[in-house]
């Protein structure tokens, strides 16, 4: 998975490309943890993400919990396959989602 970080100061965006799974979720977690301090608006752009597994959900949940304390988070450009995963797991109620 490729992670592209953009933004300045309090606004940050991580654009994900590929698969967010057992092998790649730790790299997103590390990227988030190293730069989330002081961020009040976080965007996770899933335009180029194929799918995600529970390892990816775990990182999204942890990130959402952090952002609940310090600002806002949204997940954007969510495709139908990923939306179905969010709905089945109840994450559609937890995350702020913008569909593709």
């Amino acid at each position, binding site marked *: 998975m490729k992670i592209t970080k953009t933004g300045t100061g309090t606004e940050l965006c991580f654009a994900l490309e590929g698969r967010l799974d057992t092998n790649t979720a730790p790299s997103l977690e590390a990227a988030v943890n190293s730069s989330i301090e002081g961020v009040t608006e976080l965007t996770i752009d899933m335009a180029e993400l*194929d799918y995600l597994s*529970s390892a990816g959900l775990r990182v999204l949940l942890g990130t959402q*919990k952090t952002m609940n304390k310090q600002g806002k988070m949204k997940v954007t450009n969510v495709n139908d396959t990923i939306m179905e995963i969010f709905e089945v797991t*109840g994450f559609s109620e937890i995350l702020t989602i913008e569909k593709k």
Partner: protein
Amino acid sequence: MKELTIDATVENILQVTSFVDEQLDSFGCSGKAKMQIAIAIDELFGNIAHYAYHPGVGPATVRVEVTDQPLAVLITFIDNGIQYDPLSKADPNTALSADERKIGGLGIYMVKKSMDEISYEYKNGQNILRIKKNI
């Protein structure tokens, strides 16, 4: 029927996915079913990699079969590690808020919801987990 026996490690998940994809491609499996199967492999093979032989490493076998009428793919995961039935775990409460949510059990829950059949048995010292997906 084709099968692959490989060390159950997180690093090998991709190889298992490629192996299964090859079989799926040979009979025109849809993109969505392929993704759901790839997620199931990540969850199930990932579980074996994390827990079956912990803290050591051991082998797992992944068997792929295709059935006709209805066209379906049957994937069997076999390991010789500690006895563990992932289906014995209660489904997670998916209605809780972010701060109340726990992540345990979500992976197997996703597999249950996306596959048409799932079964587990422990036989001759082996964990045998089967999933079936109608194509």
